């Protein structure tokens, strides 16, 4: 250890380290997306379709007109929330893949509580508030349960949250096909519709429902929570090294369960907006895979709540363009899923690149033995 070099910290290097890390976090996912696009093009060529047509259609369908942009944003609303539902537990070191279940159960709870509220003519804003609250509480409890099982019973949270999803969907089906079934819903068992008067409208001047705004607000709030508050700091400590967090006397169990509850609230809220803004009732349409796409989005966003927003919009656009692609190119629905699958695999592979690309590494002080 040399005293001469040790004391002097070259403060000019400091922004560099941050900038390099930021550039790396931007560069790697972009390359992954590019590689995915190339692989998907190969896939298209194999099935005899033109990649150029495909990507230009996705562009047209996703961002080509003000209508399609609004469609994309609309579709991204549940994706933002589902992405947050994966990203927040990921920061504390948990892989929670059960947002789908919390979304479905939250949406169902909102639709169920709406039935008496609508019947008694409670004013719409109050109804929405109660619906949103019950959706968040339900989702929060659901994912919180996975966190609790993890910390206090040692149950793997990935497995438990996945299985809880199936239970959640089964619970919804049980009620929707039974006690809470609207007799008028002949072909598709559903709860009683909340009616147009109780639909959440669009953000003024657009066709995008308020769920999009809620997603952005939550993303910003959670970003601040994770990066600028003691809670976020403690959660990152726990996620990075649970033993160190314990040795600092942090309430590790409480932090883990709290992060899971936050995640569940996000997913539950997504379910609320699906019911209150899109479907108007709870039925099998709630099981749309948003929760699972959210995992992909969170990964691409490196579990950064702010980055979840643009990534979710991108996936919203791909989803919005799906119909157009299907009609114009005569390709099945599942094509978009193939693209998503390719992106996911490439993305997971690209994770190993972090810290290996020389360009993004700060110069090492040479202090290695």
């Amino acid at each position, binding site marked *: 250890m040399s005293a001469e070099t040790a004391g002097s910290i070259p403060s000019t290097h*400091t922004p560099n380290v*941050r900038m390099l890390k930021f550039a790396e976090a931007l560069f790697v996912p972009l390359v992954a997306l590019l590689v995915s696009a190339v692989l998907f093009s190969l896939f298209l060529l194999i099935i005899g379709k033109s990649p150029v047509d495909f990507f230009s259609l996705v562009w047209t369908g996703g961002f080509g007109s003000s209508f399609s942009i609004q469609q994309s944003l609309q579709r991204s609303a549940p994706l933002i929330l589902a992405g947050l539902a994966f990203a927040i537990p990921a920061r504390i070191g948990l892989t929670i893949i059960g947002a789908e279940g919390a979304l479905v159960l939250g949406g169902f709870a909102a639709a169920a509580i709406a039935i008496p509220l609508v019947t008694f003519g409670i004013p719409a804003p109050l109804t929405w508030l109660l619906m949103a609250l019950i959706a968040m509480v339900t989702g929060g409890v659901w994912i919180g349960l996975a966190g609790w099982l993890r910390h206090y019973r040692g149950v793997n949270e990935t497995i438990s949250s996945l299985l809880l999803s199936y239970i959640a969907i089964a619970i919804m089906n049980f009620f929707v096909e039974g006690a809470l079934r609207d007799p008028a819903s002949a072909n598709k068992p559903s709860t009683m519709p909340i009616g147009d008067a109780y639909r959440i409208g669009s953000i003024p001047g657009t066709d995008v429902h308020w769920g999009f705004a809620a997603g952005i607000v939550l993303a910003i709030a959670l970003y601040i929570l994770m990066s600028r508050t003691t809670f976020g700091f403690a959660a990152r*400590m726990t996620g990075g090294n649970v033993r160190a967090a314990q040795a600092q006397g942090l309430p590790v169990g409480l932090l883990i369960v709290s992060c899971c509850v936050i995640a569940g609230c996000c997913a539950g809220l997504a379910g609320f907006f699906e019911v209150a803004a899109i479907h108007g009732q709870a039925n099998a349409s709630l099981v749309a895979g948003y929760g699972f796409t959210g995992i992909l989005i969170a990964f691409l966003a490196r579990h950064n709540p702010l980055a979840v927003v643009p990534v979710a919009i991108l996936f919203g656009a791909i989803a919005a363009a799906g119909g157009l692609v299907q009609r114009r190119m005569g390709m099945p629905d599942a094509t978009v899923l193939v693209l998503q699958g390719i992106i996911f695999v490439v993305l997971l592979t690209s994770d190993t690149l972090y810290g290996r690309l020389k360009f993004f590494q700060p110069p090492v002080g040479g202090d290695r033995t």
Partner: protein
Amino acid sequence: MNAVAPMGRAPSLEATGMTKIFGPLVALDDVSISVPAGSFHALLGENGAGKSTLVKSIMGFYSPDKGSVKLDGKEVSIKTPKDARAHGIGMVYQHFTLVPCLTAAENLVISRADAPSVIDWRKEKKALSEFMETMPFKVPLDAQVATLSAGEKQKLEILKLLYLDQRFMILDEPTSVLTPGEADEMLGLLGDMAAKKEITVLMISHKFREVKAFCDGFTVLRRGKLTGSGDAQSASIAEMSRMMIGDTEVRERAARTQHNDKREVLELAGIFAEDAEGTPVLSSINLKVNAGEIVGIAGVSGNGQSALVEVLAGQRAMSDGAIRIQAQNFAPKRSNFDRYKVFGLPEEPLKNATVPRMSVAENLAFRAFDKPPVASLGWWMSPGPLRKRAEELIKLYRVKTTSPDAPIETLSGGNVQRAVLARELSGDVDVLIVANPCFGLDFASVADIRSQIMEQRNRGAAVLLVSEDLDEILELADRVAVMSGGTITYVAAIQETDRNVIGQHMAGH
């Protein structure tokens, strides 16, 4: 595979003009080292001196920018570790590279490059027994590696090299996981084999005692340059240490001051704890630590010391008993750590006291992030004060890092420990819990860290020092307690006991 190796086959190795440049850093600058056949050569140097870079360049992990390696006088080209292996150069790492769930025999056989896809165990066992007969030391071949002691595992690592016929051995601090007895035994055996010209050994070490006792030649590196070499028997420790640390002032070792204040601060009252399977790991631990006193807990690794530290740090629940600080019951949680000014230096700081991916500045803030000036209202954090404090601590404790924003995992072991020290000792300390603070650190860091622990004692802190290094306990402690089989079997003032008595209690007598 020729299991029975003939005698007198120790190779000599000469590396000339080795140079390795990483970006702006010259990690190795024109270093030459010559290890004659059958010698036991020590490679000395501080953390970051370039020892690892040198051996990794010889082993083919790095390709040196300049330099050549001669084996038995003939120049060889080693581009990958596989080449090194083919030339009979093998390495024993600081940490074990054995598969714990396999037996010793299985570990040996699978280590072979030509291990067959279908193994004829009867034949292999016979060959292995014959091989073992020729060896000066034995390891039970059918024992699962996980059940072997650290000393036996290290022996097995060396047997593995001999089995693979790698007769130039590079050992990277091979004794850091061993008890003093095990270390002496192993080094003695290696020394005997070298003397018989069966092997040649190049050993990276920090411990002058071992170098003086077992090595014949030595080479010293400092900041990537060769600063000296010679005969380990005729050179004095002072000379070698001067070559290692140069003219850098090592912080003056704090002298022990006398205290009249004999307040009892920390009391462990009948502590019991179990592991995950419900097996008792601690039973009835009773110990008192006064203000201004260091109580050293000695013991062979694995006798419950780490469980005790975990209980005190809140990483493990106790099933019975109480911790009392200033006669108050103490639960190890954050508010109490602050209230009673309890601080800790756990062993393996990168694993137990830091978050490797968080920055140095953030790691330095673990104690302070939820208090002013970093946090206002108890939850809102300001990066400015956090950073400012980090810069002060980095300077004060001489933590060598490229930037406060660099992840702490990019620092060397000594600097990680310095950073943890800076965090834990910069405040007002009443109770300090220390576990193996100098494990794997270099000479200068060790002296520095020990004197800081002594300073805390002199300032009136009650210090509990858990250490597997008896020398450390004899140097620092006012009283010594011995742990054996999960309980404390012996307590004595340091003046009233000696190494032999402590050693007997460590061994369970």
